[in-house]
């Protein structure tokens, strides 16, 4: 469906990793970076804003917020 923001294009190798259901922390950060860029944000800014709940209201931001949650859990594991 038409949306204002462009959905990030995920490179083939990362798509293949996603299809397995399991990402390395580097791959997870790569996906976060793609979604952050789609929101015109840097990775660090997006992570900071996801934690603060101040990302733009958009489903890409919702997805990004959930991925940041995963990143935090990966670091604490």
């Amino acid at each position, binding site marked *: *469906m038409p949306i204002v923001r462009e*959905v990030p294009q995920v490179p083939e190798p990362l798509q293949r990793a996603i299809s397995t*259901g399991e990402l390395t922390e580097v791959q997870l950060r790569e996906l976060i970076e793609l979604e952050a860029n789609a929101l015109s944000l840097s990775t660090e800014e997006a992570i900071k804003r996801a934690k603060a709940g101040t990302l733009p*209201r958009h489903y890409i931001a919702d*997805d990004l917020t959930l991925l940041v949650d*995963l990143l935090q859990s990966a670091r604490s594991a």
Partner: protein
Amino acid sequence: MPIDGRTLGEAARTFCNHLNEVLARTVTQSRLVLLGPREGERVQVAFRERGGPAAAPLRTVFGLMGLYLGQVCTAIPMGAGQQRLITVRYRYTLTPERSEEPLWRWEYVREWPDDTARWCRHHVQGNVALPLGPTAVTLNDLHLPTGYVTIEDILRFCIVDLGVRPLSDNWHDVLEESYRRFREDFAPRGYI
């Protein structure tokens, strides 16, 4: 049968596959994808297309809308080497065509994000104007309390209130059975 598994990944895959079956018999062929960091303690279940986040297009009586469903889950040990899935956070949104901002956002977090947050952890927000006395507010200004909102609740809302044409004649039974399974098996009392 509880949604358990020997590992978080196994239990989450059961959950994800179950939801995809429910979606395919109710409102959309779009598929939820399971994703988690290697050796992580949490996983995400959300709509994805070619790896990227996706909103399932739904034809409603009010026009085309995009449905986003996303959850983060973890597992709690149940003994005998089994893990049971619980939801840590969810976000469900419905966005009208050509709108950037969702009209409704149902959100839940199991724990407040910091020591200062005191809003309702289960709430709905949205780009909806509210006549509230002399002050102009929108639903985005409030954390309007909800109970725990299941994905089945959202799918029912899409069919009954938004007029999405169901993908099977027995959609009501599919949702009821899935809801029963969620209440009795997936979410042990006290964990949602």
